[in-house]
């Protein structure tokens, strides 16, 4: 089930991505609405990270195309922010919190120039937004998982983008941080930003997201959360893995949604 919309923020058209001939994304075709908090849901290895990287032009497409704000990525790059999985970098790297957040102010255009005092001011303001203002000069090797994630978020905020692609921002993060981050994301949504979040905790999907994309190499569904987040489609996404399924049906029952038995 795929709900298409007009004037999408993101459009994927028949996108296929393969690693060494083995397709990990197959013929993905969807459109996403502006100003929404969007959850990308699927089991491990279903191609969520690959899909985000493909949207950011970090991987070659075997076929199809992507459009962002109706244009090619290169024309709108400054309006898009990518938050990689926290585990994708070495946190023992000799850098402090501000160094990392200032990366968000770098562009191909200013890479050889000094950053301005305005860049610094923006970076500090973003650290305040994620409540890390007391850690500006802290070395990143001394941060907890939750603090690392906040730094990544501040770096993304510093880009002042309109579209955010976040890969598993809630992994290894304490409850308080998760709540703080989701509040911030909702606030950004109110300002018209569009936020894609790769997520795997099915319990919170209904609370967090307006729109859901269900993925398992193929696109299982894309649409409004209330239409798409239902057991049959989740069953298809997770390929009948029992423990997860029973979790979901319990969840749906608890919330008073009808559960159709096969």
């Amino acid at each position, binding site marked *: 089930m795929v709900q298409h919309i007009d004037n999408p923020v993101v459009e994927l058209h028949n996108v296929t991505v393969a690693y060494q001939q083995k397709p990990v994304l197959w013929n993905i075709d969807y459109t996403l609405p502006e100003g929404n908090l969007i959850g990308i849901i699927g089991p491990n290895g279903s191609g969520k990270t690959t899909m985000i990287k493909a949207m950011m032009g970090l991987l070659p497409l075997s076929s199809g195309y992507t459009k962002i704000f109706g244009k090619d990525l290169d024309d709108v790059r400054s309006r898009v922010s990518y938050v990689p999985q926290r585990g994708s970098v070495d946190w023992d790297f000799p850098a402090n919190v501000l160094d990392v957040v200032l990366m968000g102010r770098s562009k*191909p255009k200013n890479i050889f120039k000094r950053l301005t005092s305005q860049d610094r001011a923006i970076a500090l303001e973003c650290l305040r937004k994620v409540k890390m203002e007391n850690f500006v000069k802290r070395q990143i090797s001394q941060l907890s998982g939750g603090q690392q994630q906040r730094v990544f978020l501040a770096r993304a905020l510093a880009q002042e983008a309109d579209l955010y692609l976040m890969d598993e921002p809630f992994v290894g993060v304490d409850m308080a941080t998760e709540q703080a981050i989701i509040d911030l994301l909702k606030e950004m949504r109110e300002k018209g930003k569009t936020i894609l979040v790769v997520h795997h905790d099915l319990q919170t999907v209904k609370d967090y997201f307006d729109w859901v994309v269900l993925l398992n190499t193929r696109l299982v569904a894309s649409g409004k959360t209330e239409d798409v987040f239902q057991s049959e489609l989740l069953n298809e996404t997770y390929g009948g893995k029992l423990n997860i399924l029973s979790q979901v049906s319990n969840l749906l029952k608890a919330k008073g949604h009808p559960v159709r038995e096969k």
Partner: protein
Amino acid sequence: MDAFWIILTGALVASCCALLGCFLVLRKMTMVGDAISHAVLPGIVIAYLLAQSRASITLLIGAAVFGVLITLLIETLHKQGKMQLDAAIGLSFTLLFAIGVILISSFTGQVDLDQDCVLYGEIAYIPLDLGWRAIPRQVWVLGILLMSIVLFIQIGYRGLFITTFDETFAASLGISTLFWHYALMSAVSFTTVLSFESVGAILVVAFLVGPASVAYLLTDKLPQMLILAVLAGILASIGGYFLAVAINGSIAGAMASVIGIEFGLVLGIKKIRRLTSKAPQSVFGG
């Protein structure tokens, strides 16, 4: 005066290698530095055979070509050939180095380069080859190289920092990660070939990896790491010279050994510190 020139040459090579080595260590690419420093050998020999000249500029071009060639070869074997990175590195540099050694040994007589010179250099002869204003030629060459590297790091600091810490994020900003990769690799190639004559391949590798690793253990700030690496390198150059004089051994070999000793000492002190700082906790923690 001879001792001064020898130590200064060693210190200049050490500083160049230490600065670039910091980025190699942080990129977990020290093996690539190792590979480049070996792969430039056939480049040097072929350039020498073609041009029949030992002029640095000819050798430099030959070496730079092979330095870039091996980075391409490694990338291709790894990405297209699905080889593990360390296997791809190991295969390409032993292959190119072997070609270099074969070339040297089969053209002995014609080639005024010998294996000992290539492996261990001839740092002891530095003071004999005087250049402008009676300062040894190598000191001029390496001094200019060091200034270029400092300039490169100063101008490229943020580009190097971003692409080293988080390459995918850098790419997502539209920054060319390939440009920074090859810029760094070219700098390593140039440094290797310019240092080659004076200190030889083995000491180049030791200077690329050692001082940066020592500095990495000592600090968690990048600017400090760069400075400490240079200091560790200079210290090894001074210490190595006097060690060599004391035991009447190879100067390059002694300098490499001192780096090893520095690393061992720092690692040892860190381990002991950690053990002693842990002790009270285990008492209270039960």
